[in-house]
């Protein structure tokens, strides 16, 4: 070991360009890892707390409110508990695979953060094939889940693993095709490129560019929910059917890793849909350059959190689909529709060239329609609140 280190030191002193690059790359990797971990873990943790609070409010309960003010550090307590618990490995399990599986799931989720930006300059790597990379790296999650299900040597876990394999493989197609429509319209496959093709105002967002992209947004979001194992597509871990699916046998930190991945994955869903459809980090040009990075970061995280909230909302509202119905939704509806979207977007681009007055008019009209739908929704909610006998408390701090 010593000769190696000595020679390394000597070469570094001599200014070997290859080695400098290596040191630089390693340093960057560690730095990025630390920064990302500092973002991902707290975000996932806080999301878990917020989800539990939202669920509680939806179910006329109080939710966690004991640890810290309003229970805000409940997630730290949960994490500590998981670290302190015994890491149990079943006697009959395939021990090596059983140990690796949670890491694969975690890497699959964590890897997506390489291309997910936080601002115009805050991104680890703006890959030319960013969206493609996103789709590819998330597949690693399904490998991890199958591995977890198989290695547990538990029939329920195996069923969960098989379900997740079928689900992720199927739903990658509509989600990929929906992003393809975006790529077609934006003319770029890099995430930053897609965002740069949009503006800060809603009528410049891709989701409002034409009806096909609007449909793509919903198809992508649905498919992403399915890939992220969220209700109504949470069948791989269907609690009431498969006990807990692939993670039945896991405990301690490995179990926590699965859930960290799940909640961080929520952010990924929100972030990708924000980047591809909702204008990403674009902020109004009036904002002074000094505060721009912060504003961009806030705008992007806010948009991503909107997606996270949608997913939480769906989870605590819908029942769960059956396996065959889930496949039906994917292959009979989402896949043909997303093909239609690609063709539709292509035809649209020829009929209404970008920047033409008609195209701008269409997006403005779509924004107005969206606002009208939002107003209708608010009215309906107000009506429901009035008819509910006043039993609902709107105070978030109970």
């Amino acid at each position, binding site marked *: 070991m010593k000769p190696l280190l000595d020679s390394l030191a000597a070469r570094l002193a001599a200014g070997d360009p290859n080695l400098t690059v290596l040191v630089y790359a390693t340093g960057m990797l560690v730095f990025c890892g630390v920064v990302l971990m500092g973002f991902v873990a707290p975000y996932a943790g806080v999301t878990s707390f917020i989800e539990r609070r939202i669920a509680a409010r939806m*179910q006329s309960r109080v939710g966690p409110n004991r640890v810290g003010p309003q229970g805000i550090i409940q997630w730290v307590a949960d994490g500590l508990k998981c670290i302190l618990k015994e890491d149990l490995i079943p006697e009959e399990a395939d021990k090596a695979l059983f140990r690796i599986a949670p890491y694969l799931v975690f890497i699959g989720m964590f890897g997506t953060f390489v291309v997910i930006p936080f601002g115009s300059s805050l991104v680890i790597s703006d890959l030319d094939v960013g969206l493609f990379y996103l789709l590819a790296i998330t597949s690693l999650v399904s490998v991890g889940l199958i591995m977890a299900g198989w290695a547990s040597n538990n*029939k329920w876990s195996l*069923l969960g693993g098989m379900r997740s394999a079928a689900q992720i493989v199927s739903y990658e197609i509509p989600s990929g095709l929906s992003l393809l429509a975006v790529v077609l319209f934006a003319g770029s496959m890099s995430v930053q490129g897609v965002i740069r093709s949009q503006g800060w105002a809603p009528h410049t967002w891709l989701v409002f560019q034409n009806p096909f992209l609007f449909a793509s947004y919903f198809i992508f979001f649905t498919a992403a929910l399915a890939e992220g194992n969220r209700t109504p597509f949470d069948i791989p871990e269907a609690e009431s059917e498969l006990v807990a699916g692939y993670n039945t046998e896991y405990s301690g930190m490995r179990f926590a890793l699965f859930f960290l991945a799940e909640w961080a994955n929520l952010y990924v869903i929100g972030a990708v849909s924000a980047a591809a459809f909702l204008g990403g980090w674009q902020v109004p040009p009036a904002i002074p350059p000094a505060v721009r990075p912060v504003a961009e970061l806030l705008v992007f995280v806010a948009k991503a959190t909107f997606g996270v909230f949608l997913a939480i909302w769906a989870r605590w*509202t819908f*029942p769960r689909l059956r396996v065959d119905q889930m496949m039906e939704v994917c292959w009979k509806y989402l896949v043909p529709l997303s093909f239609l979207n690609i063709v539709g977007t292509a035809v649209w681009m020829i009929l209404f060239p970008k920047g033409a007055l008609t195209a701008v008019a269409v997006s403005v009209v779509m924004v107005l329609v969206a606002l009208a739908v939002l107003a209708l929704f608010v009215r309906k909610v107000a009506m429901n609140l009035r008819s509910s006998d006043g039993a609902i408390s709107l105070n978030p701090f109970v």
Partner: protein
Amino acid sequence: MPDVTTETLSVARTEGGLVKTEEMLLNMGPHHPSTHGVLRFILKTDGEMILECKPDVGYLHRSIEKIGELMTYQGFVPYTDRVDYVASMNSNLAYCMAVERLAGIEVPRRAEFLRVLVCELNRISSHLIAVGAMAMDIGAVTPFPYALRERERINDLLEEICGARLTYNYIWIGGVSFDAPPGWLERVQAFVESYEKIIPEFNRLITGNKIFVERLRDVAVIPAAMAIDYSLVGPNLRASGVDWDLRRDEPYSIYPELKFDVPLGHGERGTVGDCYDRFVVRVREMEESCKILRQCIAMFPHDQPDFRAKVKNVKPPPGDVFVRTEAPRGEQAYYLVSDGTTKASRVKIRTGSFSAMAITEEISIGCMIADLIAIIASLDVVAPEIDR
């Protein structure tokens, strides 16, 4: 539901040839989140398709029938609470009615009203558990806390009248243990009024949900003839379109004086007798129970203060009696044989969950595992009632 039998599946397996597949023996329960207690099913599956489902009962057997032969007639009443602890008022009622008929005891009119009031309240709370748990088993967690919230209000009312929240021991031989406290009827009335508004809200939340309907329609259809063959009772029987309700067809207590409808399964979203019908019938029955409660409150005999007949040691003459009542899980029947002493020489309890458990074996063939969860929930089996 695909039309698959064991034979067609095994043919498909052998003809494929290239890929070797085998059946999986899957043990579901007794520790499983959706088996509503300690039930166990031994499943033989092809992937997720169930080829064979054997219910294995007996994990909650507590020899209640034998205990009934060792206790005095009055002493056994608290044990009947434990026969079906989700609806123990109704169990009390069935047993007490049997003893009263055997010994020829007259029950005061006020007691009859109180009995029907608490039984119908208990029916609502039992059905709330049934529909809430069913929604949860299908994957929608939110309706369940709402159902439990309403059930808590019923528990509060029942606690006021008898001091207990689950195992009431309220209905005694010859009447009830306590009179209603002052203002209790008004509070029941207030509950009914607010609860009747909750039911449409609950329906908006889950009953009409597209995914929920799709999960339940045409799943595990029980035709009327099959329901009768397996002697299904109560809401499970009525969901198959058989118009039979003991409260109306073999009336007891004050039910002949009350007006209420008997909801039947109409195949609203699919076939008559599917899981969705069984769900909807229970929701409708809660509405009917509200009607009954309103009438009971309106007709309540305030001028007759007597709520318990003077009963010392019950010593019925030798003979036997078979009394059945309409409990939330269908007919609950007690068969008592008296040898002229203070203890019954034979107690036999017939419960709805037991026959409902038997039918799972036939209707679950060809279903997915997720469907079996829906079937168990829709039949509303409660483990202690199966085993006793």
